[in-house]
């Protein structure tokens, strides 16, 4: 690649860039643009339209304004799923961020062992939700699962992980953390490798302790990555669906039902299309707000420093 580059460089011909706009470029963009409009733009607008109508199955529907939204906010099950989803985000995102950072700090060396361990912690990321939930359901089976065997061996009080309403969402969160830990870890590893090593050398000369080096050098250098990881994970975990559906079917007693599960049930099991569309717009807004709030917080912090 180097050789042809330099020969091209020697031909010093100034090409006057044709400033007139041509439609050729649009032709290149067109294939993607058509799919994008058909699969995202139109469905998004139509989704908002649907959310303002009373629609069942494929009937044309009747305009009812914001009634779908109003009814949602007095729907106990929907409110429960909103609370569950926030609780789930609270269970998973801090854990993913902290464990991911801890792993990255421990694995931030280029040695064969560290490479292998990194590979192991990333491996679960490539599995499908079906595989992950199957594995964890087998782990959580009462009486005979790995967990209950461990609890028996330790002489602890057994926990009905998937059928106790207090534990169902926590169990789903544990499986999710196991599944998703690879990405935050690798993002942190990448960030740590960007920190110039002479910073640490200078600190060592000044006699800085290990925790001082972490607090004054490492932490400020990876602040951006921490915020990034939190945003990515909030947006991802807000969309909890497959794990809860396959591990607990949202139960017991809706204790692990998420917003996306509500949309799925309303839209594709009860065919209450209008309600489902309204709920999906609310989810869309929540995700947007979560991401924006995070950006806002990060910018404020940066300004005050």
């Amino acid at each position: 690649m180097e050789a042809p580059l330099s020969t091209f460089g020697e031909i010093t011909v100034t090409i006057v860039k044709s400033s007139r706009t041509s439609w050729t470029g649009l032709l290149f963009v067109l294939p993607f643009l058509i799919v994008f409009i058909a699969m995202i733009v139109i469905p998004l607008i139509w989704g908002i339209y649907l959310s303002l109508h009373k629609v069942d199955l494929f009937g044309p529907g009747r305009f009812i304004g914001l009634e779908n939204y109003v009814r949602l906010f007095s729907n106990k099950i929907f409110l429960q799923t909103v609370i569950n989803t926030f609780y789930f985000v609270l269970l998973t995102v801090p854990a993913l961020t902290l464990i991911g950072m801890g792993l990255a700090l421990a694995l931030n060396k280029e040695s064969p062992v560290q490479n292998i361990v990194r590979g192991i912690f990333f491996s679960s990321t490539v599995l499908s939700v079906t595989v992950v939930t199957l594995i964890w359901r087998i782990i959580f089976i009462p009486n005979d699962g790995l967990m209950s065997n461990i609890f028996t061996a330790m002489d602890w009080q057994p926990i009905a992980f998937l059928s106790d309403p207090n534990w169902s969402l926590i169990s789903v969160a544990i499986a999710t953390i196991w599944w998703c830990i690879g990405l935050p870890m690798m993002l942190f590893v990448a960030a740590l490798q960007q920190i110039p090593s002479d910073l640490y050398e200078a600190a060592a000369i000044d006699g800085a302790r290990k925790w001082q080096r972490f607090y004054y050098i490492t932490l400020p250098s990876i602040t951006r990555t921490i915020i990034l990881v939190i945003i990515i994970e909030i947006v991802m975990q807000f969309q909890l669906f497959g794990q809860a559906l396959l591990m607990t079917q949202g139960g017991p007693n809706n204790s692990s039902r998420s917003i996306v599960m509500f949309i799925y049930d309303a839209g594709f099991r009860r065919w209450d299309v209008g309600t489902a569309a309204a709920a999906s717009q609310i989810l869309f807004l929540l995700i947007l707000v979560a991401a924006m709030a995070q950006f806002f917080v990060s910018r404020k912090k940066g300004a005050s420093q």
Partner: protein
Amino acid sequence: MSHLNQASASEVCVRSPEKSISWLQNFGMWLANNKLLLVLIACSLLMLAPFLWTVGLSLKSNQELMLGASAVFHFPYTLNNYADIFQNSQVFRWLANSLIVSIGMTFWVLILSSLAGYAFARLEFPFKKIIFVIILMGLAVPEQAVIMARHQIFSALEMHNSYVGLILPGLSAPFGVFLMTQFFKAIPPELDEAATLDNANKFQIFWYVLLPLTLPAQATLGILTFLTSWNDYFWPLISATEQEMYTLTIGIASSQQNFAQSEGLGFLASQAIFSALPIILVYIFFQKHIVTAVAGGGVK
């Protein structure tokens, strides 16, 4: 044991040249010097435990597991559970469906993204800025926000339960366009200018001169798309309602609805391992590329 002694031997040279140290002391010293390593190995085992447990169960007969899962720790082991999976003729159909959908989606995403990326990076055309911004905003739209309307469109066009129906929504993800735009921008423009002198048209420049240089980006985008498509659960669950059109992810999930009752524990475990196997093999061979691609894709 030998590598252990080697490690401790090098430590001994540094610390004390005496030869009369017993191996217990050696070992103790090695432990003290490798605390982090030991913690890492312990953590890895903890991480792998769910997977290893499932592998163990999958190799035991269902009858033996009825008596207790601790049977996992001793012989005899058997492959019967895997043989039972193949009794279900649908499994290979699902595997083939997954391959067709994933490869098809990857192929078309690469083509559409490259074409659009080249235009946004190199060409001037009307409405370029506004089109780019609209696509940029598309990144913020979660799949659930469009799912109801998308389902109705596919119903109206009778495209559910078809490969096109499974592939098409995946082609609208804006991420690939951004990745390719950035990558095309990074290629020195002198290359195009030289090709223009040779009377090459825009498409020839794109196809013969620039596209071969974008191979690393194609690999990243290709791996990401393939993985996403292979593991996708939401859209196939909604669109593929006939068993013959299930992907592996949907099929395996559907075939274990009556969990732990009708089917034995060993059989369930073998299903998990069987459906994990293709992607684990891909991961082992392409680990470096996959990690780079996913970590790079995370920072959209």
